[in-house]
């Protein structure tokens, strides 16, 4: 990429400061929308851009906004900055280094759906980023870009930060709303969907931090401009978080669908000591692992799905041939056992038993029957959990059993010997 659309801190030093941000097109979209566009027009351009949610599910943002009923007030915008999927650290960089773009995107969303209050929910560990963000919000208020009668247009908007306190499940949108309302951060039944009955039972848009950071350039330059990046079904640019066994882990912003996983690994400096790649987790712990044979898969929603996984939040964890797959799967299952909110039995018990089986295998006491049982436990969870976390938890088990079963067998034959 010659120029970043999102990680603009890499091109413009100190863009986290209001003056620098404004000198580089900052808040130009906000001024344009407030003074020359109707709310419906903002929704229309975001719809036309094809921007898909960057929090994991990839749902089109403009379509989501258009679900908000016009005649019910108040409405809310909630920004999902819980960023807790293992391997994901893109929202962190945006909040630390380009906070005004997140604020401007939030404001544009609020104007589009006519909400006068927005909450930015950040994971509790983001206390430092929250201070940077709060400073940016304060600057925007002082400049008359937020608050009452913004730019003399009569539109009012308050943006508040709310800190979580360490619970992955609060990234799930209904759990996040419960947490923000002061209840236990456990998922709620959908429907009703947040667009109809969200925060305080009012119409609510929830979008990921990165999703909203895309909105100012879309509103400023138009849908066609945005669509010069990406593919028909996956327009725009996306931040790819690369971690694990590579030389230069970090965030790489790329047009969707242009490059392959192999090229992404090359951009991240290649693997440590040039070891062969064994597997890639394209969406942290939550989506199936892909074997090395899938390295030429293109980086977009539809290609990743065709290859048997998901793009999700695009947190690429790279495993090379020094990594023991059973050990890696155990780490991921431990994550889900730790993060299961305990509301439903299949997830709470399933993750508990799966971890116990992994521990047994890794302690050298595993049998072939235990490997079978892992598959059975995962299958007994699939489709039976209250929310997607339970589903996610089955993915490291089932996908590693599928692609790397001989590694499991080695562990148990070693144990028998």
């Amino acid at each position, binding site marked *: 990429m010659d120029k970043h659309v999102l990680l603009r801190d890499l091109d413009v030093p100190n863009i986290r400061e209001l003056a620098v941000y404004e000198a580089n097109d900052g808040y130009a979209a906000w001024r344009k929308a407030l003074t020359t566009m109707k709310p419906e027009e903002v929704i229309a351009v975001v719809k036309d851009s094809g921007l898909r949610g960057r929090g994991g599910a990839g749902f089109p943002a403009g379509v989501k906004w258009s679900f908000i009923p016009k005649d019910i007030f108040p409405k809310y915008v909630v920004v999902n900055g819980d960023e807790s999927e293992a391997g994901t650290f893109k929202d962190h960089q945006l909040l630390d280094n380009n906070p005004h773009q997140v604020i401007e995107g939030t404001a544009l969303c609020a104007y589009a759906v006519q909400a006068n209050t927005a909450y930015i929910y950040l994971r509790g560990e983001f206390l430092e980023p929250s201070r940077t963000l709060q400073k940016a919000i304060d600057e925007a208020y002082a400049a008359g870009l937020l608050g009452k009668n913004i730019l003399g247009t009569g539109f009012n908007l308050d943006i508040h930060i709310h800190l979580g*306190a*360490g619970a992955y499940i609060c990234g799930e949108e209904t759990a996040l709303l419960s947490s923000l309302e002061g209840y236990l951060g456990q998922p709620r039944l959908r429907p009703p969907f947040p667009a109809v009955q969200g925060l305080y039972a009012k119409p609510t848009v929830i979008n990921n931090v990165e999703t909203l950071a895309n909105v100012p350039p879309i509103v400023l330059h138009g849908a066609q401009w945005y669509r010069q990046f990406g593919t028909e079904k996956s327009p725009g640019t996306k931040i790819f978080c690369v971690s694990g066994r590579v030389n230069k882990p970090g965030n790489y912003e790329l047009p969707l669908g242009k490059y392959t996983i192999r090229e992404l690994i090359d951009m991240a400096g290649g693997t440590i000591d040039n070891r062969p790649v064994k597997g890639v987790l394209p969406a942290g712990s939550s989506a199936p692992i892909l074997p090395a044979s899938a390295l030429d898969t293109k980086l977009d929603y539809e290609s990743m799905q065709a290859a048997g996984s998901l793009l999700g939040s695009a947190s690429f964890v790279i495993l090379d041939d020094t990594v023991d797959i059973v050990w890696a799967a155990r780490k991921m299952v431990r994550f889900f056992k730790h993060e299961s909110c305990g509301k439903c039995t299949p997830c709470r018990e399933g993750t508990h038993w799966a971890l116990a089986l992994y521990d047994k295998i890794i302690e050298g006491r595993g049998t072939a029957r235990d490997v079978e049982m892992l598959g059975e436990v995962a299958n007994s969870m699939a489709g039976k959990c209250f929310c997607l976390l339970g589903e996610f938890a089955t993915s490291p088990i089932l996908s590693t059993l599928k692609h790397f079963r001989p590694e499991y067998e080695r562990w148990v034959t070693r144990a028998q010997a």
Partner: protein
Amino acid sequence: MLREKRASDIEKTLAKYPSKRSAVMPLLYMAQEEYGYCDDNAIREVAEILELDPTEVKSIVGFYTMFYEEPTGRYVIDVCDDLPCALRGADEFVAHCERKLGIKVGETTPDGKFTLRTVMCIAACDRAPVAQLNTEYRYSLTPESFDRMIDELKEQDKL
């Protein structure tokens, strides 16, 4: 009492939300800043201010890993040992921390200074090994930089 000590913070926080209950997490953070952890007394105070049932507030404290139900060391060190960090040596790094501090994960040094915990991904896997020292990020740690950090904190506390 929290109500007196943090009166203006509480007022500002309550003004952010249409419902008092939403202030429960921010108030628990305040209580934790004041008392070090969320004991029954802190929970009762928060519950009273927000007109909630103390058992409900207690369940919220128990739900989240960042609210402490027990006293901790003066410095809580949360080292990430989730998969992406572990692929870059986090497990060995945690073992080093244990040796340096002379305690196991989950324990506090006898002088009450350091509590060592491991945590799940804290969204900084590109800078592993990574830890939080009382919620401050410490990136790209090495055994040497960890030792220096501990020694400096010990020095600083002597002054």
